[in-house]
């Protein structure tokens, strides 16, 4: 942890809202990314990320300075998202996430945007096929580059449990990606040439 971050944390511990705002500014992206990858919806991810920072704000006096702050923060986010997933009875589908595939909208789009959007779909499908804990573990691995020990600390698991979950998740994601890779190529071709015949 950098010196300035320690200072900011000290100020935040003394209920300095400005100092806490600096922490929010600094860590909003990893927290939001974890929430988005866990929940698959921008609205839910925003709510979950805001809730994560609120919970951290309330529990800041229980934070152990010997522990990494980002690990602690992502632990709150991951547990909150897992709870949300378990509470969720019906999967939420956000219509604005499909705007790139609106049938009525045939205006030309840059290929890169389309590819990016399809890749995001594949990522979402892959992650959705995992259990909540497997998903959290693989997100922390791929997007946070966390070690197995850090993932274990974040998700309150043993290192061997994390290894097992990462193992299962990687195999599953490789399978989904393999199944979807053909579709990715065909979609891009269709967009370029108008019909699948080309």
């Amino acid at each position, binding site marked *: 942890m950098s010196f300035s971050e320690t200072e900011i944390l000290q100020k935040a511990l003394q209920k300095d809202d400005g100092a806490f705002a600096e922490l929010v500014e600094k860590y909003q992206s990893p927290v*939001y990314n974890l929430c988005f990858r866990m929940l698959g919806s921008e609205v839910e991810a925003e709510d979950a990320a805001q809730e994560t920072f609120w919970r951290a704000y309330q529990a800041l006096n229980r934070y152990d300075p010997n522990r990494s702050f980002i690990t602690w923060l992502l632990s709150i986010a991951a547990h909150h998202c897992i709870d949300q997933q378990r509470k969720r009875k019906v999967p939420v589908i956000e219509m604005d996430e499909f705007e790139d595939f609106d049938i009525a909208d045939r205006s030309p789009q840059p290929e890169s945007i389309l590819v990016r959007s399809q*890749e995001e779909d594949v990522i979402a499908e892959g992650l959705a096929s995992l259990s909540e804990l497997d998903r959290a573990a693989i997100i922390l691995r791929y997007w946070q580059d966390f070690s197995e020990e850090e993932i274990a600390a974040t998700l309150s698991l043993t290192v061997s449990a994390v290894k097992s979950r990462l193992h299962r998740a990687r195999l599953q994601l490789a399978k989904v*990606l393999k199944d979807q890779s053909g579709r990715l190529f065909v979609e891009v071709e269709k967009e370029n040439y108008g019909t699948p015949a080309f």
Partner: protein
Amino acid sequence: MEHQPFRMWLVDRSNLNEDEEEILRNHLAACTECTALEKDLAVADQFFLNSPPRIPREGFTRRFLVSLPERKQQEQMRQVKIWMIGIFLALAVNFTLIVAASIYTHTTTAWLVNLVVIYGSFLAFLDQSSLVLHTVSLVIPQQVWIPLVIAGVAWGIAGAGLWVWTMRRILFSGATNEA
């Protein structure tokens, strides 16, 4: 061909020792299935590692700071409600236990007798209270105790009113020092 433990080793390759790595390489040279899995895993790793993280909409921190006072107030209200429910539950449990202990019997007749006894005790308490007031009225002149009683009753009503107003404010507005 046997694919285990090679499939497991492929997923956890970084933890293999030199001998295991050598055995795995030899197996991959002869096994197309495991080679395909190795490729799939590498492609998946590359795909996910290259995916950029999602970032929140502009103004995330501002939205958090704007919501902070409301969240604080809601949390205070929640705590006050829990505290009050706790107090009421404790009082209800105590009252129930006292009444139950007083009237617990095996027969309906004895239960009715106990109920009458409790009522009698209440009447006796009122009786004693009026006796005390009567004695006080004899000792203290009427010109003094009548204003004293009126002041006491007024004080009691004001106190009860203040309590009701405070509880209402705490319940509906939250316990906050902010204006």
